[in-house]
């Protein structure tokens, strides 16, 4: 089952990036820690229901700007910091939402497997995040060819 969750978050991320950000992203090997030099940003969505946990996307501020520019069809130099945070929030929301739908399909669930919180965004140069959960934790790394970003899933059945 754990392998399925991990595959599901990878498929969800590639689908959301292709359809909403118009970017092809490929999973690459996760080397044990999130390593983003310089300013970076994290958008997290908590969820609760039959399953509880969170999903998070971690990337550099430059890549978050590219996501914003692609989603909003704007020149990245014209985006405000708030535009960038909103775009990354929206992506994290969509990853959680798509994951929820795929998880429900996989489990053949008739009711919602969870409901989502609003995203929180963390932005800065020197920080790390820790989900406090006594359950498996999944990380996946992705590359666009130029940029690397990470998606995290922490989840347990209630």
């Amino acid at each position, binding site marked *: 089952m754990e392998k399925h969750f991990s595959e599901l978050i990878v498929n969800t991320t590639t689908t959301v990036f292709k359809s909403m950000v118009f970017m092809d992203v490929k999973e690459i090997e996760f080397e044990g820690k999130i390593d983003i030099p310089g300013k970076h940003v994290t958008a997290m969505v908590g969820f*609760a229901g039959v399953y509880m*946990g969170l999903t998070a996307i971690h990337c550099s501020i430059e890549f978050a700007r590219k996501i914003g520019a692609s989603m909003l069809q704007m020149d990245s130099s014209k985006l405000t910091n708030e535009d960038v945070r909103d775009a990354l929030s929206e992506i994290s929301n969509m990853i959680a939402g798509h994951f929820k739908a795929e998880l429900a399909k996989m489990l053949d669930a008739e009711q919602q497997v969870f409901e989502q919180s*609003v995203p*929180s965004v963390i932005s*800065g140069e020197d920080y790390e995040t820790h989900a406090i959960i006594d359950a498996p934790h999944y990380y996946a790394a992705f590359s666009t060819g130029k940029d690397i970003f990470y998606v995290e899933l922490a989840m*347990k059945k209630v």
Partner: protein
Amino acid sequence: MISEEIEKMLLSKSIENVFKTMMGYEVSYSDNDEGGDISKHEHYTATIGFAGGWNGFVSITCSTDTAKFITSLLLGLDSTKVTCEDIRDAIGEVANMVGGRFKSLFSELQNSGKEVFKMSIPSVIQGSEYNIFAPADSGNTKVVVNVKDGKLVALLALQEDSNSK
């Protein structure tokens, strides 16, 4: 929609209650306190998401010294002996308890008989030079309390789910 004033009152009561009942500590307030700039130095933030008829999150942020003091109160340890993991667990638990107390007070206020939201798992951020943001349309209610020689800044984001209105 609830007013920022009511959100502030409920959040303040939740923090006061958790500190008093779980740590035997009375927090205090200073007039017009914005909490200073904790983000320049090493600090901790714990968040917990709300999901259901109302969506949002609550976060608490404090300096490492204040986080150590809170950890020592909650776990009954000497503050010089607490580890980073102890601090993360304690701060995460305080956010969880503040979120739980807020849920209970908010449910009483709504008086609808329905569960207002479920809570997700806590997440802890540790570092310096970082800030936390909530979506602009979910309110950004802030409460600052004095804890020993430091400040604890709580941020509440809350919005009614459009499907449950």
